[in-house]
């Protein structure tokens, strides 16, 4: 029997998983909305992937006390810009250093245009069993405004190729709320995504992040995403996904039973994970650490034999409990009430949220009933102080 994606038991189990995140910063070009650590092909170091993979292998070797891992996620950037040979080297190094558990989730983010049947087969051979496609939309106008170069047909062919290569979980990433999108075109995008029968679906609201081309455009007067419209679109995708048998288990993620993303779940449950590559994050032994974001600085450090950290933070008992609670709010299973949930629920802000039907209590857990207001709830949790617990 497979647990429902939104079951508390599954969430609590995820707390004990170990994961690894590997960041691959290379992209053909910079998408206008993206503020991740990326380097475009025409930027400095943007084509020297071999040097980067060498550095990753060295960095993985620096992990002091590696546990067996249950989930590996290659993200970016665009990991599929690496040659299968390099991807194999990364996975083998992880296996050698950490040990990869049987039935581990080994996932890679991919752009549809890079994905050929042969490439898919190569990746399966290396051990990848999950692929997450950055499809974003099936509306060509929206794709163009997002700076994406693939066509809706590319997306469909990529999914088909992954399917026939034997990937057990295929995820489709969608972005809603770009100004070019209409309710109708979004509806069509959602329908086409569902027709491809993905085991997993992510839908994110377009967010204007500081320092991006999008934010400069908005500052210069271009239309910004409208939150009410985004709320409508969210409700639409939730409804369609649900009726297709996908269960929402996190604010922006839906899955069929047995296909939740382990890496994601474990991150939201304060599970331990190691991060490698530029700008990657790490959570081990109660310490959160982060890597240098700049490619050249990262390479210099690693090549000098130094762990390429740019900072770390060690949370005390209260802070880490509060963080567990705030992050866990994103899960449909809710978050274990713990020592912070009770004072929060009885605080003035907490009571208002209960009265307004934004949060509720269920089986010793606090659940956000209106997932689109999760950040509002999280901010209210910040009002709880150690003395309240």
């Amino acid at each position: 029997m497979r647990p429902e994606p939104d079951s508390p038991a599954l969430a609590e189990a995820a707390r004990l998983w170990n994961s690894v995140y590997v960041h691959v910063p290379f992209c053909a070009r910079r998408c206008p909305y993206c503020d991740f650590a990326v380097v475009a092909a025409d930027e400095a170091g943007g084509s020297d992937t071999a040097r980067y993979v060498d550095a990753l292998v060295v960095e993985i070797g620096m992990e002091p006390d590696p546990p067996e891992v249950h989930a590996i996620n290659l993200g970016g950037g665009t990991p599929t810009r690496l040659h299968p040979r390099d991807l194999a080297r990364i996975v083998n190094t992880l296996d050698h250093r950490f040990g990869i558990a049987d039935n581990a989730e080994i996932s890679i983010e991919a752009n549809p245009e890079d994905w050929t049947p042969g490439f898919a087969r190569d990746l399966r051979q290396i051990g990848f069993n999950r692929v997450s496609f950055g499809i974003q939309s099936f509306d060509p106008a929206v794709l163009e405004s997002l700076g994406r170069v693939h066509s809706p047909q590319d997306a469909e062919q990529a999914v088909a190729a992954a399917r026939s290569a034997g990937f057990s979980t295929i995820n489709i990433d969608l972005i809603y709320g770009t100004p070019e999108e209409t309710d109708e075109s979004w509806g069509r995008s959602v329908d086409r995504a569902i027709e491809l029968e993905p085991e997993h679906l992510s839908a994110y609201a377009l967010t204007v992040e500081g320092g991006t081309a999008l934010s400069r455009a908005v500052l210069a007067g271009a239309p910004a995403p409208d939150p009410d419209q985004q709320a409508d679109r969210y409700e639409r995708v939730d409804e369609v996904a649900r009726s297709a048998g996908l269960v929402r288990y996190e604010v922006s993620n839906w899955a069929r039973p047995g296909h939740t993303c382990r890496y994601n779940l474990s991150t939201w449950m304060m599970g331990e994970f190691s991060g490698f590559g530029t700008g990657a994050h790490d959570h081990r032994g109660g310490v959160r650490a982060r890597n240098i974001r700049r490619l050249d600085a990262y390479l210099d450090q690693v090549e000098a034999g130094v762990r390429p950290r740019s900072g770390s933070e060690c949370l005390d008992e209260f802070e880490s409990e509060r963080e567990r609670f705030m992050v866990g709010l994103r899960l449909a299973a809710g978050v274990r009430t713990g020592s912070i949930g009770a004072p929060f629920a009885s605080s003035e802000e907490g009571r208002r949220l209960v009265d307004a039907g934004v949060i509720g209590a269920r089986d010793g857990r606090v659940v956000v009933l209106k997932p689109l207001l999760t950040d509002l709830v999280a901010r209210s949790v910040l009002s709880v102080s150690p003395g309240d617990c």
Partner: protein
Amino acid sequence: MTALSRIRNFSIIAHIDHGKSTLADRLLERTGAISERDMREQVLDDMDLERERGITIKANAVRIDYRAASGDMYQLNFIDTPGHVDFSYEVSRSLEACEGALLVVDASQGVEAQTLANAYLAIEEGLEIIPVVNKIDLPAADPDRAAEELAGVLGGAADEVIHVSAKTGAGVDDLLEAIVARLPAPEGDEHAPLRALVFDSFYDTYRGVVSHVRIVDGSISTGEAIRFMATSLDVHADELGIRRPSTEAVQRLNTGEVGYLVTGVKEIDLIRVGDTVTHSRGGTTKALPGYDEPKPMVFSGLFPTDGDDFERLREALDKLRLNDSSLVFQAETSRALGFGFRVGFLGLLHMEIVRERLEREYDLELVATAPSVAYVANLASGEQVPVRSPQDLPEAAGLVSIEEPYVKVMIITPSEFIGTVMDLVQQRRGEMGEMTYLSPERAELHYRMPLAEIVFDFFDLLKTRTRGYASLDYEPDDYQVSDLVRVNILLNGVPVDAFSTIVHRGKSYAYGKAMVGRLRELIPRQLFDVPIQAAIGSRIISRETIKARRKDVTAKCYGGDITRKRKLLERQKEGKRRMKMVGQVEVPQEAFVAALKLDM
């Protein structure tokens, strides 16, 4: 000791931006009171706020030694005064301590209403006026025209006007010579019992109350037993001194001189501005004529955002009052805002300054309610009740009429804007008085207007509509019955006392609509739909709805960057701290003064 005949006490009357502080800086520099190296702009303005805003709030007195062209040494006491309409009471105090005044006018701008009002004040005090045209170096300067205008309003000849550039220093020597030659020496009896006038005082954390005094008769020495006559307070003159502009203690202040006095007294209420200081034994029994107490014109509620800060706010107000005897306050309770104070101010600038100082110097977060003037309610019982806050207005049943304060307004404007000014004044219920031409290009207009109509945005509007050229001054007139109503604002169906305003009936609909619209923009979306209504009594005159917030969440935590996510939430939370819960609704601070910025 300087002979009386070698002392000159003067102040500078100038419109804001006409260069008073720069001229003062230049006088200090030219006489060597301050070296060029130590020169910074606005030497005499100590408060950070004064420097930032380029204004003078507190009076100040500086002694300058000047060797005249004749070779004789003179003691010049320059008494710096504020220039803004809110602080005219400070001006009147300072003028009392002088024999003369420099009336400074910008060569490109000409005479302004405020300057003229202060000049008339000085003339009434019997001061000798030296007209000065400043900024003659500016390309747009028209010194001759400005001089004609000055001579016209003062009834003198244009060739008596001194032309200077405080910026380049041109003409400053002529001005110094004119001060010595034209201003009278102080009159006073050096052998009579001590009479010293307190013309300002401020609170110093270490020394207690420091008073600026002008010795009218006799002299005062350190250590002497002295008496403040109005309060019969007997103390010792612990310290006497002057500013040059750095502080310098002296043993003695003689007849005609100006300086400061420290007595160790900590309560500013005991040392009133306008009081006379004499010796405890063998002193005079004849006090100098005092000043009028400054009267607050504008009242506003100040409430701490955090209710626990109420006592801290009280302490802070008490401390500010040590330096500012014009500040009056009493505790007030608002259903919406909790415990706070109703505070009386001289005007809007004064209000802004007090609020800024409370937040900055005392680290308080405050909500200020829309300011109100002091109305008077006439009750059926024949009783008269002061109404300093809309909540004070009695219920309609027992209310016969409401009176509001009127002011006499003087506006000086270029002739081309006379029509514009008349329109504006008419919209604000002004009654036209006389109009005279200062020159073919400029006119002086007199009006009678309700104070409530000018106290908020009138000055800004006047400036905007006359491209900055018109200037304004006003003084209190009498009270008059008006057709006034209270407009209540209901948030989520509940009246919010802090939003109530008293307005003229003819404007109540426009006001209600504008206010409701403005609040809809200012109040963020909540967890539920929030109706905003404006009502007179039980009648709703306007309504808008703030739709419930639907989305407040961002994308996934990138690569597990939970630290960054938390910091973002913390920053957003910080922004929300300036919100006040009114019933179930979160209201930002700006909403409480929304009435000030209505476009209607």
